[in-house]
């Protein structure tokens, strides 16, 4: 079965990089990818991770006060 992914969207690359670091610290497999066109016309990056970790990632960002735009399923 194909793995399902979420992406976390941020206002800036710097915030996405901080998100990446936080997730890696928790051993969550993340990858920075270009923001899919259907989500935003922005030219930045977003953080992709397996959907199974959605709530964990959300709680992690909120716990660490990392400002993010949204987390959406791909």
């Amino acid at each position, binding site marked *: 079965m194909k793995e399902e992914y979420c992406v976390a969207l941020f*206002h*800036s*690359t*710097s*915030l996405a*990089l*901080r998100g*990446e*670091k936080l997730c890696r610290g928790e051993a969550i497999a993340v990858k*920075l*990818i*270009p*923001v899919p066109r259907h989500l*935003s*016309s*922005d*030219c*930045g*990056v977003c953080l992709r991770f397996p959907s199974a970790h959605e709530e964990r990632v959300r709680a992690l960002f909120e716990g660490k006060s990392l400002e993010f735009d949204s987390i959406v399923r791909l």
Partner: protein
Amino acid sequence: MIYLDNSATSFPKPSAVLEAMARFTNEYGANPGRSGHCLSVDAGRIMYEAREALAALFNQRDPLRVLFAANATGGLNQALLGLLRSGDRVVTSGMEHNSVMRPLRALEAEGVRVVVAPGASDGTLDPDDLRGLLSERTSMVVVNHGSNVNGCLQSIREIGGAAREAGALFLVDAAQTAGCVDIDMERDNIDLLAFTGHKALYGPQGTGGLVVGERVPIERMRPLVYGGTGSRSEFETQPDFIPDRFESGTPNTIGIAGLLEGVRFVRETGIAAIRRHEDELAAGICRGLSTIDGVRLFAGPEGRRLSTVSFTCDRLAPSEFGLRLDEEFDILCRVGLHCAPAAHTTIGSFPEGTVRLSAGFFTTQEDIVSAVKAIRTLAKNGESS
């Protein structure tokens, strides 16, 4: 060759700095925060890591509050021109570099009131004297942490405390001190810290910036440059968040990759160890020069000085002295006014200027002994050869 011009630019650099810059060029030299492919992300990551390293060095919790610019001048201009408006009052010291005085004089012409607290002839500013100048409503206090002319260090914690009591923002010019003096933005009451990468942080030229504390109203700080940031590209207005609001256009990523290694070098060596070595060098220079007839020494008080010291000689003009140190002894230093006419006026060496010797972490006591010997020779026989 003996290089004693570290206050202008440190030389040599740790080899890791050059290696990191080569690695960036050869392995991932893409545009950070723009394209989203793996190399672009790697380039962005270097920028982020450099912000983290600098934030940790200066004890600023949020690495995104580290703004990059081309040098300390860029950081100082961003703070001064970005925040001060007609009708504002700013208080500064008598030891400032033109990177502060020129933007301030330009702002003065637009209605900002500039007040200079002159300080003592050794360059030090008494925090109580400053307090006396802060009874009127003041927007900002800006002070050069360490002089590029005589190396004197200011008591920034007390000065910052006075600024805070008066409700003024405190801007510190750390061009000479970032990397060789312990700076803690929280403890030292610093709101804005301008730093350069190519001096005591041992990075390449073209790096530096401004660290912006939590008390600074970012929404009121006007960017000096507008343009593409790789974020919020659907809007034609500048993003309102930090650092993007203040960092338009492709940054000096190769330089920042080098700077990151410079900062790592400083943190691994330890600022206390760097201070200790440079203190000993300063003592060696001062001790040596004070025994030479006809030489007048300009240095900060003991325990409150950098390894940057100036002198004049009654037999030879500074420019002539510097040229002969270079040509006859292979000793490289800087002469003249060091872009700081205000500081030279305060210490009493304006307009002739001085010969400045600035040692760095890679300078040895043997270098200092040789330099003092050469200066003694020139001071004695200056006119004859």
